[in-house]
């Protein structure tokens, strides 16, 4: 049973990644609302976490990074750090994006892409 799940997890992780990417990307391009776009982007980035999480399982690296002596067997803390970094980056991206959206809202009074476009083109004429 465990083996089965392991199989499922390890062979289908790429599919999950791809699925999430597709979903995120779809939301990203199909929505005119900038906030929804950011949601799509977040989902898109989430696919990375999935990839790295599944990778962590494959590599089987587990916690500590205390290096007792250079000769000791060195347990690999990397997948953790990588996932975490990727998450931080994702959140930072989303934060900057949201900050931009707030300022766009202030400047245009809307966060809908087509309305912004309309406002700009009207101003142009």
């Amino acid at each position, binding site marked *: 049973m465990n083996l089965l799940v392991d199989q499922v997890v390890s062979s289908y992780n790429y599919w999950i990644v791809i699925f999430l990417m597709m979903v995120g990307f779809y939301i990203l391009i199909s929505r005119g609302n900038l906030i929804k776009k950011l949601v799509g982007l977040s989902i*898109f980035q989430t696919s990375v976490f999935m990839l*790295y999480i599944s*990778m962590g399982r494959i590599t089987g690296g587990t916690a500590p990074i205390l290096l007792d002596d250079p000769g000791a067997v060195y347990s690999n803390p990397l997948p953790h750090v990588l996932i975490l970094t*990727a998450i931080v980056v994702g959140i930072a*991206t989303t934060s900057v*994006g949201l900050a*931009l959206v707030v*300022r*766009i809202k202030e*400047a245009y009074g809307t966060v809908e892409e087509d309305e912004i476009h309309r406002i700009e083109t009207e101003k142009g004429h």
Partner: protein
Amino acid sequence: MAEHFPILQVVVPLLLAPFCFLVRHGKVAWTLAVFGSLSALFISLNLLATVLASGPLSYAVGGWPPPFGIEYRIDAVNAWVLVLVSTVAAMVAPYAQASVEREVEARRIPLFYAAFLLCLAGLLGIAATGDVFNVFVFLEISSLSAYALISLGQDRRALTAAFRYLVMGSIGATFIVIGIGLLYAMTGTLNMADLAERIPEIADTRTVKVAYGFLAVGFFLKLALFPLHLWLPNAYTFAPSAVTAFLAATATKVAVYMLLRFSLTLFGAAFSFDVMRLDRILLLLAVVAIFSMSLVAIFQVNVKRLLAYSSVAQIGYMILGLSFASVTGLTATLLHLFNHALMKGALFMVLGCVAYRIGSVHIDAMAGLGKRMPLTMAAFVAGGLSLVGVPLTVGFISKWYLILGALEKGWWPVAGIVLVTSVMALVYVWRVVESAYFREFPRGDEKVAEAPFVLLAPTWALIFLNVYFGINAGRTIGAAESAARMLMEAVS
């Protein structure tokens, strides 16, 4: 201290950035930014000298030996990129003071310099590190601060431009980090030198090829390779002038560097060109980019946007060089990397001067400026000629090697396209020149004076470099050639 230069190169600006934010005082923040950029320049020149004298440098962060810890590795290729980035920063930072004061809200100025230093640190980090995941982290540091910098432009369209850049940039970064993850899953290492050793053993697996694809698309997005350039024109157009000058001269160049580093050092020229056929894709995209974007540039009325499209075309030249898959072609790429930074930096700085005085960079608004701002417009003419590729400017050097590379391959039509698009560059540059010199200044009695010295001096300094490295290109060519040779022969 000198042995720590590889890390200090990145840490100094990184450390100064929060100070800029903390002091909450525009002038002080600016002083910090200038100090940061100048020290970065100092360090990078030192590094370059060391590398040229005694070969590559390796620095173990945390004192852990390379495969385990993060390694910073400086060789002939990235030492040049470091010099390039920090040179431009050292020119833009002094320039920014007056320009930013005019274009950015006072309360946001400390934030501006903080983001500027962060962006600088990120770009330097990408170039300096020898760890692929670190590349991603620095890429994001530089990108996020770039989004912030762009959003500080006066026009509200700066916000939407920054948003779009954020979306496309993040997609690119995600592709890159997926590629890195796949490589890591296959090899269990993130160290570039390690990867370069291990990838050939597993080069025929599908995962490696998929990773290659992800990485390539990610880099294409980041370096604004046609048709993934859509974020660039608006971002450059609406960003504050100093930001445009800085980003145009550095950000895409560093992205090109990443592409070179990954495709040639990590995967190896043989894999990239023989297996993945990178050269064919690049050739096609580059040719289309060069031609179509030059054409589009001709029809622009906003000069910043005009130069932005020109940048996309010029990036095409760099990629074209790579697509030759030869030492000469790669030399052209590296030369143009450096040279284009000099010319576009200078030209966008000129536009900053113009915006400073007349508040617009519309081609009509620039009418008659040749008389009102003679030094500024002279700088534009000089920079423009460099862009066209007139002899004694750096532009000529790049073109020369590109054509030489094309002829080496026997690709006559490609050489022809390089030349014809140079003429197109002449056309779009000349439209601005005509407006400045052949049209009457529209607002008769209004006093428009020459740009202030603090803006002109850095601008002309870059123009001077354009000419200096055009007349005395031996050193750049030598460096580019040896770097190109190193990249091409890294693994194959």
